[in-house]
């Protein structure tokens, strides 16, 4: 049955974790020892190595619900221009990915339905040298923090293992962006958060909500605190989340 190329025969969660670990290692190696201002470009180069299918890519951080955003880093001028066009026009896969908190793909910008869905962006994107673009949300706790945007010179879909890797790279970039954005409590900074990256589990979401109410913090801050505690205790975020949900761990003594 054609359910996509993801359908393997082994344990899907385990395969995902192996790929997640490979990506985290690559990104940690890329930023380890760098000063924070140098990190975005180093992250961008590492993402390009992990996603060879893309001609180029950029990472943008979204503003507060107003459709604006800033380009954090880009692998080339075309990638920068594609991001700028979308923020200027307020049209394109990237603003939609932020709004829907889901990947939005334009596999062929030279023909419908992409041309009818994004009439202005599609023309300018093709003129800039991109025939397909793929926007992946940086999924923060309860909202999109921005997007990882890939483009290709030619048309085509992003499917199967390539799609999975792209989503997992977006997850890792999300954690790095959160750490760059907040004042990370640990001196290891970005490296700490990348190491703590793991699959989103129901318990982690439940615990995030509990920390929000107990400490009066935002969802992102709550998730950062949960991860910080997991890192400090040498446990996984899921283990700490379970202890919080079971109320065997106190929330208030950070």
């Amino acid at each position, binding site marked *: 049955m054609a359910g996509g190329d993801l359908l393997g025969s082994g344990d899907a969660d385990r395969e995902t974790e192996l790929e997640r670990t490979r990506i985290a290692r690559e990104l940690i190696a890329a930023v380890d020892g760098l000063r924070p201002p140098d990190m975005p470009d180093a992250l961008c180069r590492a993402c390009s190595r992990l996603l060879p299918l893309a001609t180029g890519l950029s990472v943008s951080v979204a503003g507060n619900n107003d459709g604006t955003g800033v380009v954090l880093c880009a692998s080339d001028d075309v990638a920068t221009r594609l991001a700028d066009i979308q923020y200027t026009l307020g049209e394109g896969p990237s603003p939609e990915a932020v709004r829907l908190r889901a*990947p939005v793909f334009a596999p062929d910008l030279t023909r419908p339905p992409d041309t009818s869905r994004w009439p202005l962006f599609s023309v300018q994107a093709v003129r800039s040298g991109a025939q397909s673009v793929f926007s992946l949300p940086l999924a923060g706790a309860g909202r999109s923090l921005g997007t990882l945007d890939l483009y290709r010179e030619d048309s085509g879909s992003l499917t199967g293992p390539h799609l*999975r890797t792209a989503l997992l790279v977006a997850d890792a970039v999300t954690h790095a962006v959160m750490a760059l954005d907040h004042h990370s409590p640990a001196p290891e900074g970005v490296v700490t958060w990348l190491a703590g990256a793991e699959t989103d589990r129901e318990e982690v979401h439940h615990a995030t909500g509990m920390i929000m109410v107990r400490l009066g913090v935002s969802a992102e801050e709550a998730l950062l605190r949960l991860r910080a505690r997991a890192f400090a205790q040498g446990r996984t975020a899921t283990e700490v989340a379970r202890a919080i949900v079971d109320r065997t761990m106190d929330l208030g003594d950070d």
Partner: protein
Amino acid sequence: MNRERELARAFVALSDTYAAEFDPLSLFHRLVHTCRDLFDVDAVAVMIADARGGLRTMAATDEDAEFMELLQVQTGQGPCMDCYRSGTPTSVPDIGAEHAHWPRLVTAMTTAGYRSLQAIPMRLHERSLGGLTLLRRRAGHLAADDVDLAQALADSASLGLMHWSAEPARADDVVTRVQSVIAAKATLDIARGMIAEYAGSTVGEAARLLDGYVTRRHLRLTETAHALVSRTLEPAAVLEPRTG
């Protein structure tokens, strides 16, 4: 109301995606509760495949910890994953006979008090999206007619998921729809945690409190969860006395 009329109503409800209050999480909620009410089963859950890999629970008739654990052990492998991968229904008539196959599932199902399971694929044309799991406290196969009916309900819900926007969904958009619902479920889980902490309750009780609140006030579950997480709705409002 007799069963035929209940079924007819269920199909209409699952395909009524142009309704103003349409909400994909509510679609799944309706699917699992309809199946539990109409079939000889004790609990129902629906899981959808994440493009990252693994299955994510979108709705369940029971939100308690033991039941959630039963679903959690199946996210990477198990009968629901087999059903999703093959796109065909999978029956486990007696979990006691599956020790060699799925040892963790045997423990989780036994602890939660279930003996048998029927998994139904969530399909969109030829594409598999996830699986519907029907659980029973006793051993045995679900009647073949009921398996067919459950498949028809699952197919209706899958179609509803893809057709709730004015724009028709092509293959490249299926991942957008599916991941969008997974993101909405994550927000719902954060909101449930907020209610649990505020009310001093379990997450399962918090889920019921939130469901009751949106039902009484005719609100969308997805929007209410988002309002809680973005702090435009206070948890206290959800715990209001039931007069509204």
